[in-house]
Structures are given as structure tokens and as C-alpha cells.
């Protein structure tokens, strides 16, 4: 036994002493963080990689938020945000997306327990609530464009449609992804790689709700106060 193997054995023994929660991980080569216990499990690596993608997506949205904040006053004689937005519809959209995020969490618990029927039901509800959100948003966009306040009316409206529309496109993509996840669980069961895809989807869906929190607070609530 060479020196590094001895050191590894000593570390393993140390981990085994830490308690019942850690010994199983050490014995199976699980990472306990801090570089001990071997490489991280695939679940942790997949989640980390997708989290980095989501953070880059958040930075894209940060640029759109900055654009909107800079251009919010550039109305070119057209309507201001105070004239256009009403809290009622936004509250409904917010409630739908929050409920959808919660149902996605319930689906996660069903996936962890490999319960096919609950997984399908929870994912279906997640999708229906998300579709309801999207329908309200499309209705709002159609109403704005119908009144002549489309993205070409002013820099403010260009920034508004870019920011909120980009979020809407993400939700649309998320709904497509959700549909394929339901099909994959049905056709292939709870295989490890399918579960990892679902892990990424759930991270994506919850992140969209975080971005919506920023949108409804900045665009719809701060935008309709008389103080900006």
C-alpha cells in the first residue's frame, strides 16, 4: 500500500466516524464536499452544469432589465407604464406561475418516489397552470398591440415587449420540455438519465418563476407607482 492509498484509507475511516449519514456516502465514493470521498455523484455534477447555464440565462435577463430600466421613461409621447398596466391581471399571472412552480415541486417529490401516476398528474397540473399564465400574457400583448401600443410605438414599449416576451418564450420552451418529460417518464420509466433530465427541467421551471418575480415587481408594481 503506497502513501496516497494509505492517506485515502485514513480519510475514509475518518469519514466513517462522522456518523450514519456520511458513512454510506464514503463507502460508495460519494463526495461529501471539500474534496473528500472521491468525485461528486453524477446527479450533483449534472445539477451544477445546468445551474451554470441558468445563471448565464439570468445574466441575459439582467441586460434586458437594465435596458428596460434605462428606457422606461423614453415614451416618445406615447403611453407611460402608469397608463398601461393594471395590477389585477398581473396578480392572476403571478398566482398561476407560483402555483405552477409549487406543483413542479410536488412532481419532484413524486419522481423521487418513482410514482408514475402522481408524477404524471403533478406534471400535467404544472403544465396547465403554466399554459394559463401564458394565455393571460398573450391576451395582454394582443390587447396592447390592438390599441396601437406595439413594440414599435416607443423605446419604452420595445424594451417592455423584449423583456416580458423573452420570459414568455422561456415559458413556452419550458412547456414543450415538460411535455417531453411526461412522455419520457411514461415510455422509459424512472431511469437515472431521465431523472437527471427532470432535475434540469425542475431547476429551469423554478428559475423562470424567480425571473417573473423580478418582472412583476419592477415592471408592473414599481412601474405603476407615481414616484418613478
Amino acid at each position: 500500500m503506497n502513501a496516497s492509498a494509505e492517506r485515502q484509507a485514513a480519510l475514509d475511516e475518518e469519514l466513517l466516524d462522522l456518523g450514519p449519514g456520511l458513512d454510506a456516502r464514503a463507502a460508495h465514493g460519494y463526495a461529501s464536499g471539500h474534496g473528500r470521498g472521491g468525485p461528486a455523484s453524477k446527479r450533483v455534477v449534472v445539477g451544477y452544469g445546468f445551474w451554470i447555464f441558468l445563471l448565464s440565462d439570468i445574466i441575459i435577463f439582467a441586460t434586458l432589465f437594465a435596458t428596460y430600466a434605462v428606457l422606461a421613461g423614453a415614451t416618445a409621447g406615447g403611453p407611460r407604464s402608469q397608463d398601461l398596466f393594471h395590477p389585477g391581471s398581473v396578480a392572476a399571472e403571478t398566482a398561476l406561475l407560483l402555483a405552477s412552480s409549487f406543483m413542479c415541486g410536488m412532481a419532484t417529490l413524486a419522481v423521487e418516489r418513482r410514482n408514475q401516476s402522481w408524477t404524471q398528474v403533478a406534471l400535467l397540473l404544472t403544465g396547465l397552470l403554466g399554459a394559463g399564465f401564458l394565455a393571460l400574457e398573450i391576451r395582454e400583448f394582443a390587447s396592447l398591440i390592438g390599441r396601437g401600443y406595439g413594440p414599435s410605438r416607443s423605446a419604452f414599449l420595445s424594451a417592455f415587449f423584449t423583456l416580458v416576451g423573452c420570459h414568455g418564450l422561456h415559458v413556452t420552451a419550458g412547456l414543450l420540455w415538460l411535455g417531453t418529460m411526461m412522455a419520457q417518464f411514461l415510455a422509459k420509466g424512472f431511469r437515472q438519465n431521465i431523472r437527471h433530465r427532470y432535475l434540469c427541467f425542475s431547476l429551469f421551471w423554478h428559475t423562470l418563476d424567480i425571473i417573473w418575480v423580478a418582472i412583476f415587481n419592477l415592471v408592473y408594481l414599481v412601474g405603476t407607482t407615481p414616484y418613478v
Partner: protein
Amino acid sequence: MSEPSRTVDGGTHPPEGPLFGEQRSLSASVLTYVYGLALAILLTVASFWAAHTELIYGPSVPMAIAVFAVAQMGIHLVFFLHITTAPDNTNNVLALAFGLLIAGLVVFGSLWIMQHLNTNLMPVPPQALP
């Protein structure tokens, strides 16, 4: 949870249980999401309330809404995305910190620079307006 299963890449990992964090009972897990949902609803209602109240000094209303928004985003991160202080999560937290740094630089940097440009630009003569 006894026999390690052989994965595609040939490594041995214990059969995976939870997708996030450690194995817990169903009721405890559901309760975590319910707590998250309740806090999120509370902060959403607080935001809508702050937007239409006379109770807060007017010019500070946008800042109050921003505080509620940041708090709600934190709640979502912890209760829904499970970004926690667990050892498995260290990398995620560091990546989040870096992402927030960049997002903050982009947003506040843009606002700062554009504000200065606006104040330093010459006023536009009326005949130049459309």
C-alpha cells in the same frame, strides 16, 4: 439502499434517492414546499400592498417593493431550487454569487452610466423633436 447499482460509466453509486439534498419523509418534504409557497404568497401580497398603500412614505415605495422582491427571490432559491449551505451545494452557491455579481454590475452599471449621459446631454431643441 444496500446494493450499489452499476451505472453506464462503470462507476458505482448507491441507487439515487432524492434529486435534491438528503432523503427525508414525504410529509417533511411536502411541508418544506408548503412553507416556501406560504412565504412566497406573503411576500407577493406585501409587494402588491406596498404599491398601493398610503402608509409608506411615497418616494420610498419603489425601494420597499425592491426589498420584498429580493426577499421573495431568496425564498424561491432556498425552498424551490434548494440552494442551501449543504456541502454538496458549495459550488452552486459560489456560482450563484458570481452570477449575482455580474448581474449587479450590468444593471447598476448601466443605470449609473445612462443617468450621467442623460444629465450631461444638451437639451433637445423643440424643432428637433418628431
